[in-house]
């Protein structure tokens, strides 16, 4: 039986694609900026999904890699006068190398040890960024240039920057999707379900956890570089434990291990408070409440739960 090209999932995905592609035309000003900022969190959710969703290892340092990526890119620009794109690429590579090196000892640990280790790593990173004032400017680093344009298109302002982010999101979705239905993805999922059994079934668990962790870190760093290019001033809060917690909460509420969860969890938790004009301080409370509700009543996350309990609807969810 030939596979139908236009299955329901593909249809839904296509509609969403068109919608999001047209956002800068549909929304302006405040709403556009909010949606665009939400895309940063979508990138973080999709990248965290590789390690926490597929491999099942809870990482509370994702914000740290985001921060490292932003600062690597920003510092290269501010201190050495590089233009954006080379700094961005180099910054991303540096973050990837750091996440690989950090991952090597961590992947030998299991469960709570891994999570606590990442928590401490994140704490170290944000403390270093905050305190090494001569390098990082302490509470804020300013003067980052925005990406040079491609021809006449300049990337200042969300109208155009949106497409940069959108392209990145598509890339991250591609990576998630390809990985999930592949030998690598199956290995990661096996590790998540039962690490010892996975090892006894031939999976080199340490290697695959390291792979997931480093790629996730690299992708977070990439998002950080994009953030630096947009905001042009960054602060150590990016790498804070609170921020890492936020990212984790967004993914869990959306649904760890699912692509739609990794997209809509962040969008929901970012846009809801934004559009309700909720103050900064209140947001973390909302995230905490959502997280607790999900853990208690819908541990698979919203998307995950929909897929599980309503298999008919699951056909429509990419």
């Amino acid at each position, binding site marked *: 039986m030939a596979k139908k090209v236009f299955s329901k999932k593909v249809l839904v995905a296509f509609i969403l694609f068109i919608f999001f592609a047209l956002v800068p035309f549909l929304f302006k000003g405040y709403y556009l900026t909010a949606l665009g900022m939400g895309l940063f969190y979508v990138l973080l959710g999709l990248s965290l999904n590789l390690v926490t969703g597929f491999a*099942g290892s*809870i990482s*509370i340092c994702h914000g740290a890699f985001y921060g490292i990526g932003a600062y690597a890119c920003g510092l290269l620009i501010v201190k050495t006068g590089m233009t954006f794109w080379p700094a961005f690429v180099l910054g991303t590579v540096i973050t990837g190398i750091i996440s690989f090196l950090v991952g*090597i*000892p*961590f992947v*030998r*640990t*299991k*469960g*709570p*040890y891994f*999570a*606590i*280790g990442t*928590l*401490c*790593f994140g*704490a*170290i990173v944000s*403390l*270093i960024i905050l*305190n090494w004032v001569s390098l990082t400017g302490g509470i804020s680093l300013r003067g980052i240039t925005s990406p040079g344009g491609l021809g006449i298109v300049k990337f200042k302002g969300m109208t155009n920057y949106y497409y940069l982010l959108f392209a990145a999101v598509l890339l991250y979705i591609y990576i998630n999707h390809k990985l999930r239905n592949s030998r690598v993805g199956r290995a990661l999922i096996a590790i998540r379900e039962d690490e*010892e059994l996975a090892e006894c079934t031939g999976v080199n668990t340490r290697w695959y956890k390291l792979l997931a962790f480093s790629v996730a870190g690299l992708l977070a760093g990439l998002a950080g570089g994009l953030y630096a290019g947009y905001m042009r001033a960054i602060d150590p809060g990016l790498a804070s*434990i*609170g921020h890492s*917690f936020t990212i*984790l*909460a967004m993914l*869990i509420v959306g649904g760890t291990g699912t692509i739609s969860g990794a997209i809509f969890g962040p969008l929901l938790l970012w846009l809801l408070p934004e559009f309700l004009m909720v103050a900064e*301080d*209140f947001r*973390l*409370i909302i*995230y*905490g*409440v959502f*997280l*607790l509700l999900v*853990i*208690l009543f819908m*541990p698979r996350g919203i998307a995950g739960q929909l897929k599980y309990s309503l298999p008919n609807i699951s056909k429509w969810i990419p």
Partner: protein
Amino acid sequence: MEELLQQISNGLVLGSTYALLAFAVALIFGVMYVPNFALGALYMLAAYVSFYFMEWGVHYLITILIGVVIMAILAVIMEKLVFRPIESGPHAAGFIAALGLFVLLENAAFLGLGAEYRIIRTSYVQMPLEIGPIKLTFQRLLVLMAGTGLSIGAYFFLLKSKIGKEIRAVSQNREAAALIGIDIHWVNYVAFAISGILAAASGALVGPLALVNASMGMMPITKAFVVVVLGGMGSLPGAIAGGFILGLVESLGAGYLSSAYKDCFAFGVLVIVLMIRPTGLFGAKELRE
């Protein structure tokens, strides 16, 4: 030499508060296999309790008692409403729930109690004390004695009392303990209550020495986790000893190396140890023995 002794004494004072918090974490971890981050929020709330009750004229020592009782109750409520329902699922769920509770409480305190730093003024803080070359305040001595006394006291309580033995049995093997008739639910309650008491004591004792604010619990609880991992997850003596050792390391490090990065020492040590021994210094070896 004087400098050294001073740093050591500061370190021991600090260490006694870490020991309390780490003991609380280790206790819950032993019983439920959950690293309970929310204890950091109880720590912070207890300090606030002391602050507010003192504003209303209550004596500092009494406020510690009040805080301890309130946090014990809060801890038990947490156990019933949050941790018990998710006990049967994956362990990660408990950890995440604890994180969620912490963030919730920390930010609720931020909003409800204000972002300003509060200062708890007890007369003890003003009372200087000199033991040989070491300059202390009475408060510090109080913290050291109370902290040490409580943690060791809690340890012996668990060692000797009936409920303590039951708690230890459950920590070793939950199913077996249930089979021989131990009331697991009651054990959970008591363990959480004790943890709440110790975390609250730690926070209330530290209160006058530090600036009280909503995020004061984050670093201490994270460090308590470090201590518990290093001392062996669930090992109670390890938690106490580790707490004191961490206090000393931090104090000496801040004095001789760098004061700005003093928080990093704990975390750095943890990362290095996990590199060499992925299950902690005294933890059980990996499955591949």
